[in-house]
């Protein structure tokens, strides 16, 4: 599903962020990525949906060589991938419902399907009672859950979650984790970047630790 071969990435040539990273993530896998702040976790995820380019190496995602996708067909890659952004990226002048529905609208989904699926996604993160509120009227954790709902609403083949529980209390965090587990069971490949030791401890999935641009270790727990 996701394959990286010797991926090298430097924003400024003097300070590489990822140095020859190689990794194979099979369809249906659930992988944690961890590492200190600035280790390159977000960058790795951004490369997977081609938001950032990489300087060397090969990346295959969903059988596409993403270094070779022309600019105007990139969107076809991206709509197979749900992303929970570290900074949420909710639109301030849309309601929570509209924000979540947005991910379906841009794919030209049917109006009725949009309403149903959006409602389901909000129910899963426990936010139906806030559906008409605007993001700025939500608590940090509620915003984060909205971002999660949006990433999952169109049942993507791949889910990239960047620190999805940073603003959630332990109880809700494990609820969200089980949501991810459920999606994973249903076939979604999941890559989750996090610092949270709690989260890492709770699950039995492989953990990749990045440090200074390299893979420090790969842990298979459970």
């Amino acid at each position, binding site marked *: 599903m996701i394959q990286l071969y010797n991926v090298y990435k430097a924003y400024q040539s003097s300070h590489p962020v990822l140095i020859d990273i190689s990794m194979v993530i099979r369809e249906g896998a659930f992988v944690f990525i961890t590492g200190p702040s600035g280790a390159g976790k977000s960058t790795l995820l951004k490369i997977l949906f081609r*938001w950032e380019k990489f300087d060397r190496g090969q990346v295959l995602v969903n059988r596409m060589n993403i270094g070779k996708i022309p600019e*105007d067909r990139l*969107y*076809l890659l991206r*709509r197979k*991938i749900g992303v929970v952004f570290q900074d949420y*990226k909710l*639109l301030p002048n849309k309601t929570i419902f509209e924000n979540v529905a*947005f991910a379906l609208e841009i794919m*030209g989904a049917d109006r009725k399907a949009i309403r149903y699926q959006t409602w389901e996604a909000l129910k899963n993160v426990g936010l139906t009672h806030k559906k008409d509120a605007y993001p700025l009227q939500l608590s940090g954790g509620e915003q984060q859950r909205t971002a999660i709902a949006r990433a999952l609403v169109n049942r993507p083949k791949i889910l990239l979650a960047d620190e999805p529980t940073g603003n959630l209390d332990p109880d809700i965090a494990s609820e969200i984790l089980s949501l991810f587990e459920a999606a994973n069971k249903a076939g979604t490949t999941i890559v989750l970047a996090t610092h949270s030791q709690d989260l890492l401890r709770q699950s039995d999935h492989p953990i990749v630790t990045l440090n200074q641009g390299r893979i420090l270790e790969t842990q298979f727990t459970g």
Partner: protein
Amino acid sequence: MFRNALHYAIANIRSNRQVCLASIGSIAVALSFPGLFLFIFVNLNSFLSNWNREVQLMVYLKDDITQQQQVDIEALLQQSPNAEMVTFISREDAWTDFQTLFADKSGLLEELDFNPLPASFRVHFKEGPDRVDTIRGAADSTKGVPGIESIDYGEQWIASFETFLIFLKIFLVALGGILAMGVLLIISNTIKLSVYSRREEIELMLLIGANPRFIKTPFFLEGIFHGTVGAIISIGLLKLLHLYFQFNFEGTFGSMTQGIEFQFIGIFYIAMIIGASMLVGWLGSSLSVNQFLKSYQK
């Protein structure tokens, strides 16, 4: 997909009401300038063609003209293209007219006890864009016909008037061009600012896999909408101005403006304004969005 984009554009206009209003306001006002300009242009034109209508051909006859010569000349004049009416003015009529015209300069000519004026034909020409040329042509072809003393159609006045018209037209076209360019710049700037205030949204759409065409369409629709509404408002304002002029000034300036009506810009110009502003709205938003999308291609 188009219906979707339309739906989305409407939602956007709703949720960015402030920006939308500011944008439409600016466009409406900006478009009022060329609108006003057209209004002035149209009215000036009709004003000038009123004056122009006064130009006519005078053919003065020799005092010793024969009956046959006079008939020939009249026939010739009547055949000139676009000639509408040929009037014969006898020496006596001319003298009466002359005396009436100079009645207030009493004493200036009272000592004249004989008539120094010749008989003449006055030829009215139909209106038309090259009326003056027609008159000039008629004058030239009549020149030298036996029995004609002299021909007068205010050559000098016409020459002045024509250079004035050329000057005015160059000036107006230049002005119109500048105006149009300026307005385009304002509108596209306004739309650029309004696109700029939505950069987050565009970024997000790219991030979550929206087709670039899907991203652009609502902006195009919005640009066209802003342009159209702006144009309609500006034409409304212009119509108000027109009504104001009609009620307040029409025919109140004595002989100078007697019979003058303020005309509204024609349907063609209205269509042009609306069309142009739709186009600019579309182009403006399309350019800005494309530029924006480009900036994300790494």
